């Protein structure tokens, strides 16, 4: 006689096992000790780490405040930072810092950021050029990047 309930139990356990295996292997790593990985770029996890590099390389800094549960951050990652032209500007001309507001409370407090997403652009020596609170669509964001780049060069001399 078929033991229906035992079979059901086994089916459920199998479903759970498949889920656990599949989910574990497909879940992407978003950050490790030193870097955060957004738009296939490496971002420093702390302001201090980025500031050091910015000072050395004399490049402006983009400090991006985000969290995993923030909907507009995700939109930034998908529609703005990953767009090829923007990605190139970010990779070439900026020192990138991604502050996970859930983890790095220190920098969040230091720059008085209330809610993600929030971007602060700075000169290489740490002077704030502008803040972009909230989301900004790709074309506008690119314009800001270029403007900041020009501005930072002027301020850096």
């Amino acid at each position, binding site marked *: 006689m078929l033991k229906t*309930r035992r079979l059901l139990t086994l089916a459920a356990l199998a479903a759970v096992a498949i*889920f656990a295996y599949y989910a574990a292997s497909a879940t992407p790593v978003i950050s490790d000790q030193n870097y955060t990985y957004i738009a296939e770029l490496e971002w420093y996890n702390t302001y201090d780490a980025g500031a050091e590099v910015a000072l050395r390389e004399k490049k402006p800094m983009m400090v991006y405040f985000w969290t995993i549960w923030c*909907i507009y951050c995700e939109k930034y990652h998908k529609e703005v930072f990953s767009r090829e032209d923007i990605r190139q500007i970010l990779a070439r001309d900026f020192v990138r810092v991604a502050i*996970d507001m859930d983890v790095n409370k220190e920098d969040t407090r230091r720059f008085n950021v209330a809610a993600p997403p929030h971007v602060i652009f700075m000169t290489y020596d740490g002077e704030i050029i502008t803040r972009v609170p909230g989301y900004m669509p790709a074309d506008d964001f690119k314009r800001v990047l270029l403007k900041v780049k020009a*501005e930072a060069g002027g301020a850096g001399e």
Partner: protein
Amino acid sequence: MNTGDALLVLALLSGSAAALLLVLPQGRLERLRRGSLLLFASSLSVAFLLLLYYFAVSDFRIYYVWRFSSAAYPMYYKLSGALAGQEGTLLFWAMLIALSALYLERGDERRFAFVRHTQLVVIVLGLYFTFLTFLQSPFTTIYQAYPDLPPGFMPEDGNGLNPLLLDPWMASHPFTTFLGYAGTTIPFAGAVVYLFTTARRRRDDAAQRLWVTTGMQWLRFAWLFSTISMTFGGIWAYKTLGWGGFWAWDPVETAMLLPWLMLTAAVHVTLEHRRDSTKYSVLAPVLVAFSFSLVVYATAVTRSGIFESVHAFIAGSAGRYIMLLVGISFTVPLVLGIWKYLRTPRREEERGVVSRTNIFYAAILVFLIITFISFYGITFPPLMKLITTQKYAITKQFFNLWLYPFFLLMLLLIGLGLHYTESRKREALGAFGVFSLITLIAVFIKPTEDFNIVDYTSFISASKPLLYATLGEISSLSVIPPVAYILYASAERWQLFSRASRRRKLREAGVIAIHLGVALIAIGVVFSSLFTSEFSVTLNKNRIGEEKPLTQAEFHEGFGRLGTWGVHQGEVLTDYRIKLLDYRDYIDYGSGAGSSYGMSIAEFREAAARTPQGEFSVQGMVGEVLDGGHATFVKLKDSTGELWVATAPGVNLARGEVVVATGMPLPDVKTPEGRNDVVLLAEQIGDSPAGAFRRVQLARVAVFRGEAKIGEGDVKFEVYKNGDARRPLIDRSLSRDVFVVMDSPTYRGEMSMTVRIKPLINQVWMGVALFVFGILLCILYDPGGRRHEAS
């Protein structure tokens, strides 16, 4: 030691005495035992009342009060501060558990060893929470917290709650949450004692009967309050967090869902067990006990600091002990359950693959899978982070994608469960087959890509594996057939009870209401999340009456050295418009009105007319600052009027700042606007120390579609001394909400707003209301204890 801590020590001592005396043979020192128990519960209750009192009178010498309250708050928010942090909630929880222990004193059921043992477990848990409260006492004074403070120092005002929490829904949220949480204590204790007793002795009729009767109502009580508290949290998130969503799969939200899911499974299994005590005699008590374990786990997620979330701003430090309790509360029922399972003789399964029992069992399994996926989603990332220091990204898409298929299956099984009786087996199975088939077809019907249940291209997975792509492509229309099935099955089920007694009918109405509630929630959740239209628009506060079309474009504004910019992008015209009806900017003094910081402008005008020689302090918000060369003119505003203040040149004030100006009135002076008016000649003008509760920018807007007005109301941006809060306009109707939120404070007269049209969102709240109503009917008309016949 202060009074509060002394009460906690008293509770620890009396609680320990009550527990020890309970172990003695019954009858010995009975009065002393009762007395100790009463003292245990009452000292905790008095301690909690004392904490409420400290909040009510704003005694900022208490560190906890200082952290979470402010003198300007209305009484409601002052009191809600008592549950704003870990210390207060632990005290509240300990108190509720002690009161539960006292509840078990009633009636003559104490003659059963089962009840006394259950009581013992409850008291021990109560002691544990009292100990946690004592570790991190809410009664710590600021002098203890900051030993460097000069003695006798009295803070002028408290730090205050995060302004986002200043909301009636949020103020009630922790209260309902902990009522629900505490409600799982007696069921847990009863289940553990029952497992232990019956595993050891195999047969204990009293335990057999009592654990269900004592447990059932408490389970429903916990279930009821968990439902209510999650809903309050959801409504708050919808209103306050700005993105207009009510659920984000944030770790704390998800953690709270876990005990709710487990409670739901436990209630169902326990009902089956009550019907036939040989069924689920292991699974029922284990699931009941796990509801409590998951409650403790949820607390650990919120408070331990291991997990990261929106709620993390209230993290505390008793986390280690809470984690310990998580371990114990999972292990004990699990071990006892296995022990009992091994000692219980196998029972014969009834014949046939399809039976009520099997359908029921399948539904429970699906429920447990849903619970496991949710558990995994919040546990895996922090666990991996501890092990590998790498952070894994589990986002809301992960949950939506994995849970949706099981959610559909569960809805279909609910339909079958409601419809099925042994006498109409064929009919029920036929309907199940038909609806399942339609569901399967609906999975593939997609008018546009917007119907995809999940946007699987987002960073749910780096590699976008096939399974994810497949699941993500499921059409959201697939939720409609199972919901229709539940409606149909409910109607069919109701007919069975047309001749039943009134009481029986009401209970059955409760059962049906609960499941119809689920159906309504399912529709609301899926469609409101997927079909929200969103627009961005900028209005100018000086152009009242102006209308702007809402285009499907994004506009953004930045500020800083580069000035403002704003770009419209790819304007897609829609037939939506927004109109600015009015704009106001004012200061709200809250309950601190008329405080010593300064009079209002109207009061000043009156007083200046009476005693022109006097010196006055006026509080207001800086409207304009004009440099007149030999003097600076500052225009102050408040809700009672406007006033020009003349002061020394070169004063540095920003618009919007709340200041107090002190000086003499000068009647009949020509103001910078060219009118003759009274002007305050201020010797000093500076920051208002604390008086104002908040500064409010209020825009009254109306939203139109075509010629029809679909929404109207106030959109506010509030600035508090410790942060900002956006208070959106939510104009509700049966078919949709019109949601308008001010993105940031007015800048150079411009207000950037986001407008959302959210369809079917109110079906979610209506579904919850139906659900809650159903549980209440069940609590009232099925108090338990009676065996109830099969449907």
